[in-house]
């Protein structure tokens, strides 16, 4: 028979250990704790499989009553380093979670807390399994309160009224209820509405349903009106209370769940901490609904989760500069502006101040306040006015004749005006003439200086510069002019019998054409009628331009040209 292999040996030992534990389980804690210790040592020695301690632990925790589990857990806590080194976190987690499930959250709060703290320390911070990745709501968190009057143990004394027969609206509260008479009047209306709000905080998804949302709004309005009606003015009182609490042991008030008895309602409303809790609940709800930056830590938490929970270990920044020790006397670099203040000391306060307004000379020169070049408008305003023939300024007094002005004008034009660079065939006898022509061009462009009178003189200048533009642009005055009677007569005369070809361009219908034919025999007359009916139809659109383009399209370019020239 061959020697048993290592694994076989290990499994044997595992089984043996478990068997012993089973036998010892009714014994005292210390016995099986030492057994588990033994198993851990065996793992370290390598004679036992790594999972055995955990199996043993799991068995122990499952079999023992809760009070003894406490001791086992202390053992687990003490040996936390062992668990980490053996790296079977999974097992530990599993058995501890089972234990957690068994424990009641409200009665064994301390024990639950210890287990959870332990788990939190055991796992790295970025461990995903401990997270509520999808931000789901704890739907089990139901607040219980007395919704139904009959469930209320605070019954009113109604028996005497019944005898006298006065109370009509009695309800079902009769003698079968044991009325412990309440000593203070209770506002049931507010009580019910207030605690119903907790259901909305528990499950904010309800807010998306219209009817629920309206109810929520109504109840919230009432509740907040009550809060507002009586502002708690006890900032001084609460400060004192906080100090008392701190001296008393430094523990904050903790409660697991709201107490919803009717009698407490009045006291709760007067408690500023309670109100704060409710208002924070509102904030959380709004955070969920709107995603605003009310609770920034929540935002950070959410975004961290969304990024896949990156590790929190900070890399040491490579260029971390050592902190400058503070010096008593200013170091030489400070003078030259390299110190932390970046101030250059000139030796004199006033000079320092002036220099440090902007220590960098180049930057200072670029600043807006050093922009001294005037705009075209400003500079040429006077010249434009003088160029206006209506003003009747004599040549020799025009500012463009001033050589100083002329020189500056040229410089400005070179910086600001595109006209300076346009090639022109015009010969200018003197700078003044050139400037005059430029002034006139500028006057056309600059919007707020009246320049209609200048146009009459512009045609000669425009010949060279604006030739390219002329064919497509009509002179501005004629563009929107309606066709006059005389023009129509002329066109009709020229069209003659060919008016039908124009008719199609003018979008005349066949019916209308027939009508025109029947109306008159004379072709000129027919042409005229055509134009008249076109004009009637177009109304304000019966412009020269439209007619000319129609004529050109119909094949009468000469008539079109003649029309536009009139």
């Amino acid at each position, binding site marked *: 028979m061959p020697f048993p292999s290592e694994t076989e040996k290990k499994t044997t030992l595992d089984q043996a250990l478990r068997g012993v534990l089973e036998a010892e389980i009714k014994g005292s804690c210390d016995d099986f704790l030492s057994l588990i210790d033994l198993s851990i040592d065996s793992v370290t020695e390598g004679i036992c499989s790594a999972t055995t301690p955990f199996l043993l632990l799991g068995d122990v925790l499952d079999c023992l009553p809760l009070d003894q589990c406490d001791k086992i857990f202390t053992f687990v806590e003490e040996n936390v380093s062992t668990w980490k080194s053996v790296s079977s976190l999974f097992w530990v987690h599993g058995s501890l979670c089972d234990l957690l499930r068994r424990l009641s959250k409200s009665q064994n709060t301390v024990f639950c807390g210890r287990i959870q703290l332990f788990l939190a320390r055991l796992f790295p911070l970025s461990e995903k399994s401990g997270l509520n990745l999808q931000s789901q709501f704890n739907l089990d968190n139901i607040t219980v309160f007395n919704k139904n009057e009959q469930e209320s143990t605070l019954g*009113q*004394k109604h028996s005497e009224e019944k005898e006298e027969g006065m109370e009509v609206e009695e309800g079902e509260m009769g003698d079968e209820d044991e009325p412990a008479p*309440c000593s*203070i009047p*209770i*506002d049931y*209306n507010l009580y019910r509405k207030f605690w119903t709000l907790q259901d909305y905080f528990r499950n904010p998804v309800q807010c998306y349903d219209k009817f629920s949302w309206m109810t929520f709004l109504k109840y919230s309005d009432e509740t907040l009106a009550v809060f507002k*009606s009586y502002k708690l003015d006890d900032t001084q009182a609460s400060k004192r209370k906080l100090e008392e609490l701190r001296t008393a042991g430094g523990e904050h008030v903790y409660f697991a769940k709201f107490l919803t008895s009717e009698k407490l309602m009045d006291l709760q409303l007067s408690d500023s901490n309670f109100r704060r809790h409710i208002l924070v609940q509102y904030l959380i709800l709004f955070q969920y609904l709107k995603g605003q930056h009310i609770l920034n830590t929540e935002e950070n938490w959410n975004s961290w989760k969304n990024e896949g929970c990156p590790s929190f270990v900070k890399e040491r920044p490579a260029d971390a500069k050592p902190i400058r020790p503070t010096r008593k006397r200013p170091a030489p670099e400070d003078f030259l502006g390299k110190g932390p203040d970046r101030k250059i000391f000139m030796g004199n306060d006033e000079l320092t101040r002036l220099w440090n307004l902007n220590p960098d000379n180049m930057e200072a020169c670029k600043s807006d306040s050093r922009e001294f070049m005037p705009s075209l408008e400003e500079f040429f305003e006077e010249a434009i006015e003088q160029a206006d023939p209506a003003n009747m300024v004599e040549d020799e007094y025009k500012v463009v004749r001033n050589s100083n002005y002329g020189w500056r004008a040229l410089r400005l034009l070179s910086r600001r005006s595109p006209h300076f660079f346009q090639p022109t065939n015009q010969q200018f006898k003197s700078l003044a003439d050139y400037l005059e022509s430029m002034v006139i061009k500028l006057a056309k462009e600059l919007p707020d200086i009246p320049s209609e009178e200048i146009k009459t003189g512009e045609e000669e200048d425009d010949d060279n510069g604006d030739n390219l533009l002329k064919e497509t642009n009509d002179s501005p005055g004629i563009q929107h002019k309606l066709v006059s009677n005389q023009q129509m007569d002329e066109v009709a005369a020229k069209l003659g019998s060919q008016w039908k070809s124009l008719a199609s361009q003018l979008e005349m219908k066949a019916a209308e054409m027939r009508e025109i034919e029947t109306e008159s025999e004379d072709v000129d007359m027919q042409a005229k009628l055509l134009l008249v009916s076109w004009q009637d139809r177009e109304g304000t659109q019966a412009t020269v331009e439209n007619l000319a383009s129609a004529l050109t399209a119909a094949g009468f370019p000469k008539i079109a040209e003649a029309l536009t020239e009139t």
Partner: protein
Amino acid sequence: MGPVELLHMSVFSQSFSPCGRFLAASNNYGEIAVFSLSSSLSPEATGINQKPILTFTAHEGPIFALLSTDAHLLSAGNGEISAWSWAELAKRNPKAVWIRRPQYKSSLEIPEINDMIVNCRDNSLAVGGGDNNIHIMDLETGVFKSVLQGHTDYIHCLSMREREGELLSGGEDGAVRIWDCRTGQSVHRLEVYKYEECARPQYGKWISCLTTDSDWMLCGGGPSLSLWHLRSLSPTSIFPLSGCQRQAMFYQDLILSVGEGHFLSHCLLGGDVKSLIPCSPPSLNTVALNTNSTEHRVLTVGGSSDQIDVFTNLSYKAFSLSF
């Protein structure tokens, strides 16, 4: 009662029943409404419970004063005092037990009665009103025993100083007079408007609210609401409330006051206004605390509206009863 009448209704006075389960309120139409507090405070109360169980017309003109004795409800309106049995009212039977009228000098003009107070020592009723006098009536016999004269203008309010057996009255003439009930003489006369710290000349000098607990007195109206020490007859605290106060009362260590403005003011004895609790009527005339029952110990306020606000917790309005 149509909507227009409801709109113009003002509640002038309230009184709780001796058992504490009912509230009677009077309005400017001469009606008295009886509300059942136990049904409106019960857990299953609905809108119907906030309506009166009985409404009846008690007087021809507005009823300015209501008062409850051990078994009766007294109401005073246009110059006459009527008494109703609470037991009968609870059974919804509005039948007057007696009606009396003080002796007025002229029979042409009937002065209204603005306030009434009971002197428990000798079981008498003091009424003050438009004829500038206080008439004392014996409740046993119904006879008007005496008239206290002294005010130069009509009387707004009355209050009783139990320990000393003195009656306090405040009137339109700005004077608070302290009367000895046995002798019928005016012992002191305080002209509140003459004290600079209280006076508010822009409102006038009339005193419309007066209450006392033997050592201290609260009075207000045209002048600011002020707390007076009766032994030294000097003001100790002035309350900076805007508007003229119409009724004030002591409650534990607070002073509750209502008047112009839609809020109930909580003031501290030192002169600070602790809080202003909003109410539904735009202006308030009367505030009453039900001390006759612990279960139904509520505070009710009424004013220029058909709504009477009920407070279970002094800091907010729980619900409203409506006429």
